[in-house]
């Protein structure tokens, strides 16, 4: 593992315009290639934290650096290039339901094309092959021409992962990726994320509320409560008692 962190939070605060504190004095580093799980109750700020990394949410003060570059000044093209190297998957999959799996997967590649080429769907043969290989990674090649809304939840999440792979991401952010899935498909999806982490060296940051899952997959667990980091330990040092504490209110 590289010693230099890929992502680093420095005194990050977020206060919403109505005065609610979203994030409070966040300070930590994420080393390249880590599988980090963020746990906490609903409303603890897990989603907000994740979305500050690709600037889907803005922070109020402090700085986040990615590969040693502060990201708060990015705008337009440079922001899009930042987002290109950070894949994101969501609780509700967020696929384009009326489109085919192929189009959904290819849509992960649009940031490599000028807008007019994306609009006309002028994807290169190499990228169409890349889409098939991405689907291979999630075991769904046979669904290439199926409409996304005909797939089960677990399959949709795998398509979403394939879409993310098209970005060639260095980081994958997963916001409650298994919250809408049954236990069996949960394992499949988490296994795929773990494999991408180990085989491709992609840094993976996952929000979960299941402690059991966190312990099973994480290299390190960060606990959030009321927008502040209240826990941060390598998996070897994590005990059951610690985790119950994070989930205690008050």
């Amino acid at each position, binding site marked *: 593992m590289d010693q230099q962190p890929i992502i680093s939070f420095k005194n990050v605060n977020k206060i919403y315009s109505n005065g609610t504190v979203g994030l409070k004095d966040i300070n930590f580093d994420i080393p390249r290639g880590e599988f980090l799980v963020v746990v906490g109750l609903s409303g603890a700020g897990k989603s907000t934290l994740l979305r500050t990394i690709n600037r889907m949410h803005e922070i109020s003060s402090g700085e986040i650096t990615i590969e040693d570059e502060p990201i708060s000044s990015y705008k337009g093209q440079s922001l899009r290039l930042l987002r290109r190297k950070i894949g*994101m998957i969501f609780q*509700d999959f*967020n696929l384009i339901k009326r*489109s085919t799996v192929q189009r959904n997967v290819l*849509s992960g590649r649009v*940031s490599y094309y000028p807008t007019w080429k*994306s609009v006309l769907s002028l994807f290169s043969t190499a990228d169409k092959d890349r889409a098939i290989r991405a689907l291979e990674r999630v075991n769904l090649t046979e669904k290439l021409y199926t409409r996304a809304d005909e797939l089960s939840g677990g399959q949709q999440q795998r398509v979403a992962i394939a879409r993310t792979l098209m970005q060639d991401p260095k980081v994958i952010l997963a916001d409650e990726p298994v919250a809408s899935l049954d236990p069996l498909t949960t394992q499949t999806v988490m296994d795929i994320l773990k494999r991408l982490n180990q085989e491709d060296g992609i840094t993976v940051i996952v929000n979960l509320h299941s402690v059991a899952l966190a312990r099973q997959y994480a290299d390190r667990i960060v606990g959030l409560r009321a927008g502040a980091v209240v826990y941060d330990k390598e998996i070897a040092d994590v005990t059951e008692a610690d985790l119950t504490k994070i989930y205690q209110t008050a």
Partner: protein
Amino acid sequence: MTTPEIPQRSWSQRWHVKAVGWTVLLVALLVGSSRMTGVDVGMFFSNFDQFTNLLVRMSQPAWSYVPIIIQPLYETIQMAILGTTIGTVFAVPFAVLAASNLVHNQWLRGFIRLILDLVRTLPDLLLAAIFVAIFGIGSTAGVITLAIFSFGMISKLFYEVIETIDMGPLEAMESVGASKVTIIWYAVLPQIMNQFVSYFLYTLEINVRASTVLGYLGAGGIGVFLQRSLSEFDYGKTAVIILATLVVVMVIDGVSNHLRRVLL
């Protein structure tokens, strides 16, 4: 067995204050506006025989008139298609800019909506009169009138559809690093396409009917013949024109139903 404790409904919930209040208000408005405008419902019934008289005279359609109106009917359909299409092409970007879930700048959105309100305020008869004055009698004036009328109507229908879409795919496309136009193309368009088509065809249908009225002002199409038959009191011909228009409207309706099923 103890009965579970059921929460008490509030007084206003128990007596349905809201529903009753709205009903009373609506009835009051209805009665009030008919008083103020002097609408005499009684007259409708006392003069009903004139209406039936007209219907009787229209009940013998002059079928020999059919071949004569085919050509102008064809022209009407062409005018409606052209006008609706031109209006739609301009309406799409305006609808996107007016949708509150896509454009967060209130001022821009407000400005666009003001323009749209203004366009919808202009009565189509006024537009037709102006364009007949500018372009002379003929279908050009009709097409432009229909285009502006369709623009106003479609842009409103479209932005209301856009505001109901699922924002999830937009978030995903944004996180991928897509540009605004790409996001709209990939994440918005597929969600609204079938409703767009259905509203387009609905507007086309309205335009076929509207163009019969515009013909009165010399804006071309079947309306010219409708006006002629009415001024000649030749109600058999009027009946044929109305029936022919009905056929066109029914065909558009059929196409619309079919496309909506296919595109769903």
